[in-house]
């Protein structure tokens, strides 16, 4: 360990360039091109129109070919995709029938709401404790009492069907990647791109190949949730200790036995964290998939927002948020649950108390249903609505805050946003390409330089450079504000165990909300436009920077902090001389995540009228233009990946030099 760091630092000293000259080399071409912008030929400032590579047309040719001409014997590719889509209707119908619709064909009603509540409560209790039981039972009760029953159960059934399918496919891909190196080298870059594609980009091909409707929404949800599971499967299986694998081998396991009986069970926790991710991604996507016609809470929310009925939209938002928190907590509890021994002479009841209780709940609720219909469906005359309350709140906000908010909004626009936008649009594209390539070279050598340069050139020649610049400017502003707000919050929260706990809980909770939800309060406060969009991005993208700052600061080795204290550091000196420098790589990774979050949100914010690349994607969705949607999606993904590649390279080398990695 120490030997390798020693060698690494020696090698580092061998390089002729010191950090200062290095950053100069990175910045010089950029500065030169920027300052000489007025003297440069036009082609070097703006991407010439006739340089545009027709990626969109190529993609459309491919899509059309697949859609119309690809025929496998008796059926076409489109028949294949539609046929595969048909497969999801069956489980969907069954789960929806169980939860809400019933089975009229065989005269069976849906499960009574009391039964669902009881089972949800039991699940919470079984997975953790009575508090989780209360949360999950309460969540179900809320849906029933506040008139969200049907919508929420439809949303839930999509999640319950999509999550296992996505989970299994992702799991399979992950296993294959771990066992076959060639497959891994193929699939990991693909996963990187897929995970940086904005939600809408998934919707467009679905609309083209499958059509529009509830089923298409469910398929989009499945596809969207596959990459995180695949990634966490790879991570989990690779994380199994070599010794454990060897123990399996020495026990005489065949390859299959090693995988099935040793590796997968040992990676159980990472895999279940993957399942948690899948469930949360499904919920986020099923809300957004309402754009292609997925029914449920998201669809209703979208409808209300379009009608600017903020009160009712908020009511739906609260229901989605509640469902998100509950699903997150339940799946998290499942991941962290550890088996415990039971006494060898335990009875059946002691061994399976929850199974017995579940049987009891089922019987009891059926019995109650026989006595009163109220046990089957919550009586509609007792349904409560919180919409009046939210409406009143919205009215109050509009009346009292309108003036100051207008001032804030105009000031933001005039003094911050417009100048920065103009600045961005004044930068020659060659300067940006030079900057990115030089940074790539300095941080990771030729390979990284070529990769990120390739990303930038793709965006430039795809023909959406100016739109991309608007996206870049909004993300930059939002990320800067996020850092300005988030860093102090993180520092403050890292000061004590209690504050960390609170901040982490808040971060965890806010992160479970489907991103679309964040548009509701923003529309309420700022109506539409750039300020509204940037505000939504800031709220959403604040989470990772706070989280990583706390994590970085709290994970500075205690010994080094103690060394600082015994050297007589004040708290301020401790922070700036010891904690911050050591936590900085981690904080940079947080900023990286913030950029990714911001890119996701900026596209969704197209819904409230931005003029950037997201708006174009939105339009592509409306016109079912799959090729354009794909190319634009890749533009967004490449922006994110450029930042990601550069920052990750920097943070890893920095961590290694600090001896932290």
């Amino acid at each position, binding site marked *: 360990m120490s030997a390798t760091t020693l060698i690494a630092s020696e090698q580092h000293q061998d390089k002729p360039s010191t950090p200062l000259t290095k950053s100069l080399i990175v910045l010089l071409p950029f500065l030169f091109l920027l300052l000489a912008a007025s003297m440069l030929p036009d082609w070097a400032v703006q991407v010439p129109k006739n340089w545009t590579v027709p990626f969109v047309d190529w993609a459309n040719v491919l899509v059309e070919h697949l859609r119309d001409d690809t025929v496998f014997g008796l059926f076409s590719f489109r028949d294949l995709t539609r046929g595969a889509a048909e497969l999801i209707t069956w489980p969907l119908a069954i789960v929806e029938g169980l939860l809400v619709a019933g089975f009229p064909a065989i005269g069976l009603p849906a499960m009574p709401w009391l039964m669902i509540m009881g089972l949800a409560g039991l699940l919470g209790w079984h997975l953790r404790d009575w508090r989780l039981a209360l949360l999950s039972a309460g969540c179900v009760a809320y849906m029933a009492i506040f008139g969200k029953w049907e919508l929420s159960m439809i949303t839930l059934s999509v999640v319950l069907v999509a999550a296992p399918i996505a989970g299994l496919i992702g799991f399979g891909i992950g296993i294959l990647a771990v066992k076959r190196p060639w497959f891994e080298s193929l699939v990991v870059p693909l996963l990187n791109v897929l995970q940086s594609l904005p939600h809408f980009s998934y919707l467009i091909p679905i609309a083209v190949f499958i059509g529009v409707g509830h089923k298409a929404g469910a398929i989009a949800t499945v596809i969207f949730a596959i990459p995180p599971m695949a990634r966490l499967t790879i991570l989990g299986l690779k994380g199994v200790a070599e010794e454990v694998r*060897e123990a399996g081998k020495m*026990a*005489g396991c065949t390859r299959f036995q090693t995988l099935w009986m040793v590796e997968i*069970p040992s990676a159980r926790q990472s895999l279940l964290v993957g399942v948690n991710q899948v469930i949360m991604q499904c919920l986020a996507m099923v809300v957004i998939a309402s754009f292609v016609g997925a029914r449920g809470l998201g669809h209703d929310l979208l409808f209300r927002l379009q009608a600017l009925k903020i009160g009712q939209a908020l009511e739906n938002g609260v229901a989605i948020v509640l469902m998100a928190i509950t699903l997150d907590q339940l799946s998290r509890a499942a991941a962290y649950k550890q088996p*415990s*021994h039971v006494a060898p002479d335990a009875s059946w009841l002691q061994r399976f108390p929850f199974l017995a209780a579940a049987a009891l709940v089922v019987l009891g609720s059926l019995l109650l249903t026989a006595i009163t219909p109220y046990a089957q469906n919550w009586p509609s005359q007792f349904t409560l609505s919180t919409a009046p309350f939210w409406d009143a709140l919205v009215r109050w906000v509009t009346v009292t805050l309108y003036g100051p908010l207008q001032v804030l909004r105009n000031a933001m626009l005039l003094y911050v946003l417009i100048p920065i936008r103009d600045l961005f649009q004044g930068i020659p594209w060659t300067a940006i390409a030079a900057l990115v390539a030089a940074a790539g070279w300095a941080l990771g050598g030729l390979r990284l330089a070529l990769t990120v340069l390739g990303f930038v050139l793709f965006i430039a020649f795809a023909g959406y450079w100016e739109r991309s610049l608007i996206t870049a400017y909004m993300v930059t502003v939002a990320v800067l504000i996020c850092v300005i707000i988030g860093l102090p919050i993180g520092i403050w929260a890292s000061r004590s165990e209690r504050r960390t706990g609170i901040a982490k809980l808040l971060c965890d909770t806010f992160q479970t909300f489907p991103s679309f939800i964040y548009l509701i309060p923003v529309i309420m406060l700022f109506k539409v436009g750039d300020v509204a969009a940037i505000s939504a991005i800031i709220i959403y993208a604040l989470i990772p920077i706070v989280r990583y700052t706390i994590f970085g600061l709290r994970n500075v080795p205690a010994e080094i902090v103690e060394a600082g204290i015994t050297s007589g550091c004040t708290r301020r000196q401790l922070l700036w001389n010891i904690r911050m420098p050591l936590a900085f790589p981690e904080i940079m990774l947080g900023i990286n995540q913030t950029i990714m979050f911001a890119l996701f949100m900026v596209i969704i914010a197209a819904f409230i009228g931005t003029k950037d690349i997201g708006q174009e994607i939105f339009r592509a969705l409306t016109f079912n233009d799959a090729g354009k949607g794909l190319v634009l999606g890749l533009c967004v993904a490449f922006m994110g990946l450029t930042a990601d590649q550069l920052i990750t390279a920097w943070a890893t080398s920095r961590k290694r030099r600090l001896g932290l990695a």
Partner: protein
Amino acid sequence: MSETKLACRNLWKLYGSDPSGFLRGQPGTPSIETIRVGGYIPAVRDVTLEVMTGEILVVMGLSGSGKSTLLRCLARLIEPTAGEVMFEGRDILAASEREMIDIRRHKMGMVFQHFALLPHRTVLDNVAFPLQVRGTDRQKREARAREVVELVGLKGREGYYPRELSGGQQQRVGIARSLAVGPDVWFLDEPFSALDPLIRREMQDEFLRLQQMLNKTIVFITHDFDEAIRVADRIAIMKDGVVEQLGTAEELVTHPATPYVAEFTRNVPHDRLLSVRAVMAPASSRTPETTAVRAHALLASVARQVLSSERPVDVVDDAGMLVGTLSRDSLIDALYSAEVPA
């Protein structure tokens, strides 16, 4: 005389782009510098050793000396670059995957440094695991597992999960698992280094107790020389992938082959290691006195008698013949001077 159970001949393990090609291209035995300059990392270099049936061979060295790699080559968990590994007279490097699985299912057991238990299985299921994978039916394998669990002193804990046990108890499970199939060869990879010193000692005693009952052929890896002395029949000291010396603890102390071995053995408490024979002075043949001590006794066991005697004490062999005398001075020299009589 016992026979060779496990042996390796000219065993090599190099890491790098094409280690076997590199090794074939070398005229003789390449030196460590040649290997490093060639861009390869040497882990095991030209090791030849034999383990006799029922013997405990301890391979000892500091971290990075290649001892764990050597062990893994012997168990064929790692594919050696060159050389032979002979197990019961056949080269297991030539065995197919299927045959190797079969050998491991019946003849090999291994204990790991960090226990390597399966977290989702109870103690009983962990111990029964090697039997399960070879297809023993449930009743039989659980009966056998119960037997072994009791043998390692964990009776009553069969239903516990690994995380509910202490480190020492977890390693008992690891030992039980490695013994479940009744292996002939028992590999132990630093089995006690992750444990507290007191527990470590207790586990060493436990290990010796088990070995007395089971009489396995053992390859035991450790970085702790005291542990090596306590458990070993013979010790191999490794450095930079090479076995510097192989012999009994006494031989290593009295006749270190290299300065490295000498450095290693310098601070070992000699009284529990050296026998009377190693430090006695020769004596002319005469009838020994009745107070004579045995030549193979450890110095610690005769120290009191020798130190309280005015005159040198007679030393006799097992047949009762006089072979030498041991004086108070030479005893003190042997115990307290840095230099060990050759």
